[in-house]
């Protein structure tokens, strides 16, 4: 595991929290949604702030504020909601005084308990996965490829039972959580000619995600936590129709959204393959998420069981939907901020995906379509998360620079022109999808001959 940089001061962390919050919220287009997001995020810190404010000793309070990174943003947590008069404020203040008086007699044990609770409220319970017995490699990218020939020539459904499907390559899909989402209908673009006036309804690619959820050590003592965490995650994913598949820490594969439906997994995103450009990949790509999260500049290690299950699932989906290897990609490589024209809006798997172990080409080396085709860039926030962009970004930047030289224009000019193309295309896509959604002539849906229907 790479050495972590020295921990920033607590004050600095509070400051960085607002930076991180802002960089994410910039990508939210709807102002009310953005407001909800910002205030929701601040509210999480507010919980910790409230707990600390109950402590009777000013010195201890000050120490805890600093320790919990609240110092830098504390004025934001106590501000008036919408600036209207709040008659209850006096009552709250009174309650606070009473509470402080009562708490003044509490013992050090209570202090420690409240402190622990406050810390719990302030931060998600992120624990580095266990290194027990040295069975887990340090980073996912170091996992060795599976031996050749592990995948059978064809994969078929062996048995469908109550709540499961068994495939011939050993893959077992848990289907009890499966729900239907909105129908999959999308348009694609020809890299040269623009919008293709055809509606598609079959998945064209696979997008790999991480769940960004709490990760517990993979130890028997944490079994209950591990199971509980996965179950809560499944409920969340099901409610929000977030991915098609989830692979939990034990390598169990859950179907969350049926394959025939779109899932809300990709957001604003860009990919290109063989001259066909895909924008906003919720419809065109199946979302496969590993229970893991980004941490310390990389994706935390996935388990051997997840790796095996992930590979089997990939093989099955690729065969079922005839998905070429070049259309299997990580979310972090496709995610963009459309307003700022920046890459890396979401960063999951933007480092460390074990391509070789999945029998896939190294997509990090592939020219980044968002940069090459649409002139997207990145900012300091991106570099804080990933100090060096993946190779494909550099390659795409070189391609852009070459185009600028060839056309005798400035790089900025070329970027801006391509960004305008992106803006125009997304608008055209939205319009086409709206029309398509209103009235789809089923006969006009593009579907290869003899292809199996999803489901």
């Amino acid at each position: 595991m790479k050495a972590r940089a020295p921990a920033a001061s607590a004050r600095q962390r509070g400051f960085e929290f607002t930076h991180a919050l802002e960089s994410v919220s910039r990508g939210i287009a709807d102002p009310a949604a953005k407001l909800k997001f910002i205030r929701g995020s601040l509210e999480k810190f507010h919980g910790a702030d409230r707990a600390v404010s109950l402590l009777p000793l000013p010195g201890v309070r000050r120490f805890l504020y600093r320790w919990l990174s609240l110092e830098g943003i504390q004025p934001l947590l106590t501000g008036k909601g919408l600036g209207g008069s709040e008659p209850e404020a006096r009552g709250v203040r009174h309650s606070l005084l009473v509470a402080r008086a009562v708490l003044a007699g509490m013992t050090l044990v209570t202090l420690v308990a409240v402190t622990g609770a406050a810390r719990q409220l302030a931060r998600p319970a992120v624990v580095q996965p266990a290194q027990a017995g040295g069975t887990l490699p340090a980073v996912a990218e170091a996992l060795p490829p599976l031996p050749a020939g592990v995948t059978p020539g064809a994969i078929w459904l062996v048995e469908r039972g109550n709540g499961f499907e068994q495939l011939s390559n050993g893959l077992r899909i848990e289907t009890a959580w499966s729900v239907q989402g909105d129908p999959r209908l999308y348009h694609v673009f020809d890299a040269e000619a623009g919008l293709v006036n055809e509606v598609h309804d079959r998945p064209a690619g696979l997008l790999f995600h991480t769940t960004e959820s709490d990760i517990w050590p993979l130890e028997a003592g944490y079994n209950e936590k591990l199971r509980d965490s996965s179950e809560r995650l499944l409920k969340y994913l099901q409610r929000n129709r977030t991915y098609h598949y989830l692979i939990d820490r034990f390598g169990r594969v859950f179907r969350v959204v049926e394959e025939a439906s779109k899932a809300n997994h990709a957001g604003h995103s860009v990919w290109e393959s063989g001259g066909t450009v895909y924008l906003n990949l919720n419809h065109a790509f199946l979302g496969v998420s590993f229970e893991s999260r980004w941490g310390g500049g990389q994706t935390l290690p996935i388990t051997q069981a997840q790796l095996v299950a992930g590979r089997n699932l990939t093989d099955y989906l690729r065969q079922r939907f005839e998905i070429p290897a070049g259309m299997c990609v990580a979310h972090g490589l496709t995610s963009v901020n459309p307003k700022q024209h920046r890459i890396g809006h979401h960063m999951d798997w933007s480092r460390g995906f074990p391509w070789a172990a999945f029998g896939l080409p190294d997509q990090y080396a592939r020219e980044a379509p968002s940069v090459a085709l649409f002139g997207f860039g990145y900012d300091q926030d991106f570099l804080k998360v990933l100090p060096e962009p993946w190779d494909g970004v550099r390659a795409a930047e070189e391609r852009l620079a070459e185009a600028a030289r060839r056309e005798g224009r400035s790089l900025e000019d070329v970027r801006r022109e391509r960004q305008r193309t992106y803006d125009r295309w997304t608008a055209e896509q939205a319009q086409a999808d709206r029309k398509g959604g209103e009235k789809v002539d089923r006969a006009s849906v593009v579907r290869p001959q003899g292809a199996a229907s999803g489901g």
Partner: protein
Amino acid sequence: MEDRKDHLWKVAQEAEERIDDLMKAGANPMGVDVGTSKVVAARRKAKEIDSLSELNAFIPVPYAKVTETILTQNQIAYYREGDELIVYGTATERFANMFNAELRRPMADGLLNPREKRAMPVLEAIVNNLVPKPKAQGETLAFSVPAAIAGREAALTYHEATLRGLFQGMGYRPVAINEGLAVVFAELEDNNFTGIGVSCGGGMCNATLAFLSIPAIMVGIAKGGDYIDTAVGAVINEHATRVKVMKEDGVDLSRQPSDKFGRAIRIYYEELVETVVDGIHKAISAAERLPRADRALPIVLSGGTAKPKGFKDLFEKALRARAMPFEIAEIRMAKDPLTATARGALIAAMYEK
């Protein structure tokens, strides 16, 4: 830190979905700017924001059958009260100008006018003209309130509670939003709701410094367009209503004035801007606890009084003459200065939903 950045995205996605849910459910939140000069209502229509406004003024005329017929034929808003017809809303100005009479206002200096006995009935009639009954009981409506001015806190409490009662009576769940903050919501979305929103209306000017949508400082100045109208009217011997009409015909503060009216307008505008900027400067300088700003903050100007050409330059000049504790990125006019507060209130209503 990098740990936290990516962790947030799920929340972002959820927030967007909640808005989708809100729209699908047929919910219809409203934003209302209850200003001294105008009442503006905003609501979301599909992906757009639709706004309507009425002049917050009235004029009583003696009752006569023929007058009532003319009002009805011309679709002029009025109601009858005893032997008077109360003409209210946008048509009032035309009447007042025609009869060389002063129009009357339900509000003064940003709050309900305590000297006007018809304040509430007229305001209620205007609001009813603009704001439809909610489709479902308890629909959220956010209405603007000014910042408190020292010594007038009680009047603000009464003002806010009265409006709350009015909207509640219509079936809404009302929430009050500070006027300057509403401008921040409407105009500083790209800055993550960080910056200063200034609203210069008829009765007051309001400014709010917000960080990440949280109001840190709210300033209220009891001077606005009405002050300019009255002061200029006294100098050139005209009714304030007449001055308002002349002013709205087009004032250009970027040019040297060529007549007495122009000179008077410029003098009082400069005074107003100085007062507002000074108020903001003092409030910020006196603040004990402000979140640290690591970047330059934008300022957005809105409201009818800020509309004349050259207002922004006056504001900028006054601001640059003072040392602020943070850097100013830009000073700009709101996209639509007259509807910014109502649009911001609508965003607040959608957030509160």
